[in-house]
Structure formats: structure tokens, C-alpha cells
């Protein structure tokens, strides 16, 4: 996500200076992706260079400069809201790559790789659910609640995909008994449980 559009959207509410913008961004997204104030000022400089924002009056007594959105900035912001987000150039999906390599690398216990990830993702989902229960409890703000939902749905989808992987791997193992059978964790002593 480009910080540019985040700042333009915040400036659409009215002129503001860097520290304020950072605080407002964190408030809207529940500090899920915290910005540092240096990033905010660098981005404001570029936006000003591109004519999308302009300085709004003189510095305040503390020397802070407020910025306002320009008409060109408003057009840029509107076109951002109007276009879908593409995942091109998004970071590689490390988990999908890891699973793909696990099933093709000899000696790797794929089911354990799946379970290790599932436990970690479930722990994250439990944390998010606690946050969500609290956020909904105190009539929390809609923006933060929607960000939480996004993270919740993503974790849930990942667990569903891991369940699917497990079933596919188990089925493939029964169909081709020649493939080296992974050591089932089921063979471990029963008392051994807990986090891995």
C-alpha cells in the first residue's frame, strides 16, 4: 500500500501537518501498519513536488508546516478509490512456496510443516478474535473493525487452505505408496504435546 494515497485521503478531511497525519493514519488502521514520521515528511515532499498537495499557510509557532490537498491531488485520490488493487509485484507468498518445495523435497515431513503453520496461524487468529471481541464491545470505530475483519478472514482462509493441503497430501500418499512415507507424528509418544 502506498503511503501517498493514505496521506491524500487524510488530507481530504482538511489541512494537517505530519505528526497529525501519522496519528490519524494509525487511528484509522489500528496501528497495524505503523508509519514513522520521517516516512510521512518524505512522502509529503514528493506529493508537493508532484503538485498533489501544497503548504497551507505559514509554519505554526512550533515550526510545523500544515499541508492541504490540491485539485490535482483530489483527482489522483478519486482514481485510486476507483481502481481495484492489483497484487502484481506483491511480495512472494512464502508459505505457498514452502509447501510446494516441501512436497517435492525428499525427507521433509509435509504434514508436520502444515501443522506447525496451522498452530501458528490459529494462535494469530485467537489473538485477532480477542481484539475483535474487545473492539465490538466498546462500539469501536468502524475503520479499525474492518481492518481486523480483513486480517481475520485472511487467517481463516490460510487455515482452510492448510486443511486442504493436508487432505491432498494424505490422499496422494495412499495413492502412490512408492513415495517415501513421511513419519507420522502420530507415532510419537502420546505425552508429547504442546507448541512446536
Amino acid at each position: 500500500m502506498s503511503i501517498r494515497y493514505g496521506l491524500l485521503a487524510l488530507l481530504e478531511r482538511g489541512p494537517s501537518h505530519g505528526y497529525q497525519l501519522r496519528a490519524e493514519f494509525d487511528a484509522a488502521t489500528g496501528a497495524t501498519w505503523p508509519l514513522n514520521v520521517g516516512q510521512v515528511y518524505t512522502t509529503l515532499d514528493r506529493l508537493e513536488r508532484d503538485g498533489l498537495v501544497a503548504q497551507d499557510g505559514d509554519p505554526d509557532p512550533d515550526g510545523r508546516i500544515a499541508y492541504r490537498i490540491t485539485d490535482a491531488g483530489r483527482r489522483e485520490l478519486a482514481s485510486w478509490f476507483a481502481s481495484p488493487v492489483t497484487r502484481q509485484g506483491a511480495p512472494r507468498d512464502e508459505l505457498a512456496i514452502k509447501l510446494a518445495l516441501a512436497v517435492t523435497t525428499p525427507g521433509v515431513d509435509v504434514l508436520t510443516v502444515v501443522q506447525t503453520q496451522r498452530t501458528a496461524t490459529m494462535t494469530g487468529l485467537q489473538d485477532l478474535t480477542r481484539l475483535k471481541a474487545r473492539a465490538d464491545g466498546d462500539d469501536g470505530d468502524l475503520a479499525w473493525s474492518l481492518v481486523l475483519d480483513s486480517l481475520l478472514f485472511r487467517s481463516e482462509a490460510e487455515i482452510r487452505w492448510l486443511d486442504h493441503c493436508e487432505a491432498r497430501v494424505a490422499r496422494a500418499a495412499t495413492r502412490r505408496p512408492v513415495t517415501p512415507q513421511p513419519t507420522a507424528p502420530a507415532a510419537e509418544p502420546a505425552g508429547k504435546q504442546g507448541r512446536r
Partner: protein
Amino acid sequence: MSAPVLLLSSVTREHVQGEVVVHALRGVDLAVRPGELVAVMGPSGSGKSTLLHIAGGLDTPTAGNVLVEGTDLATLSAGASAAVRRRSVGYVFQDLNLLPSLSAVENVALPRELDGVRGRQARREALEALDEVGLAGLGDRFPDEMSGGQQQRVAIARALVGPRRLLLADEPTGALDSGTGEEVLRVLRARCEAGAAGVLVTHEARHAAWADRVVFLRDGVVVDQSGPVAGAESLLSAGGAP
């Protein structure tokens, strides 16, 4: 730390099918304390339902021990075991099993009347239980006059009426839409925070995430769990480990 309401130690359950021995559960250890909600997840055939049936005394282990409120069910006569089951354990199933010809409060009072509690007292307890699940004032409605979510709350109230502290739930959100399902989990969660011990069997990660701990079963074995794990010392102090 308070003593577990439910303690399974080295529980194994085998079914003999002809010459084949099927292990539904193998050496499962599980302690659930007051205030705790534990979710059990696993693919079908992993032993989830067997675990719940054994925890509630509806099935008996081939080996290992099941303690409910500190009492080993295996040491009891059939009659005494049934009494523990009735007084200490509440069940919530996917199909609610509410009696359609009884009002909500009569459905909830029924287990107390079976306990031998007088009618007026049983009714008072049932009204309290309905109040706790957010159904104050709806006690005189019949099941078919209530929404799916309200009916499921009646089932939870019935499971926890009186002194029952162990709540066993098998896919309790199965027939409900996602919003109503979440509402039911909030109630379950709140009942556990108020001091009950809950075991929730589910295949929905979203629902399991309401639990303090999630136990993963595969082929009858606990392969992993997420959330805080009881240390060996606390199991020893609870009398669970040999």
C-alpha cells in the same frame, strides 16, 4: 491454579471391527479448568466426537482415566456415573434437541427436575440461566417462536442450569448463519469466563479461535495445540499425571 473440572489422562479408545482394532483415541491427555474454553479441531475421523462422548461419560475409554469434578467415572456404578453425568455435565449439540411442546423455561428447568429439584425452585434456576444467556423475558416462548440463535441460547442455558460447570458442545453453530453463530460463541465464551469449563468440537477455525486453547487431533492423537499449555507441574498437582 484451580483443579480441572475435566481431566483426561492417557485416554485410549479402541473399537474392534472383526479382526481389525481401530484406535479412535490414543493416549490423549487433556485438562480443562474453570474459566477455560478449549476447542478441539481435526479432520473427520480424527476422534473429536469420541473425545467429547468420553468426556461426558457417554462412552468409556479402553484405557486411561476420565475425571469429572475430581471423580473418576470408572470407579462408579452405572447409576452413580449417570448421576455425575446429569449433575455436572451439560451438552449442546448441533441439533438442539429442545422439546417443542415445552416453553423455553420448561426446557431449561427439565434437567433440574430430573435432578430431583422441586418445580418452583427448578423454574427459578431456569429463569436465572435464561437471563444469563440474554433471554430474560422470553422464557414463556416455545422453541418454534424463537430464532435459531435464541434456540441455541436456550440449549446453552439448559446445559448450564443449576450447579453444572462442564459444558460440552459439538458443532453448536452448525445450523446457524455466521452472525448468529458468532453470537452463540460469545455466549459460550462468557459462560466460561463466568467460571464454567467448556469443550467445543468444531471444524470452523473462526469458531475455534474463540477458545483459550485449540487442540488439534489427528488419527486419535493430540498432535499439537495453540494457546497457553499447562506445565507438567500443574498437571502433577492436579493429580493427573502418574
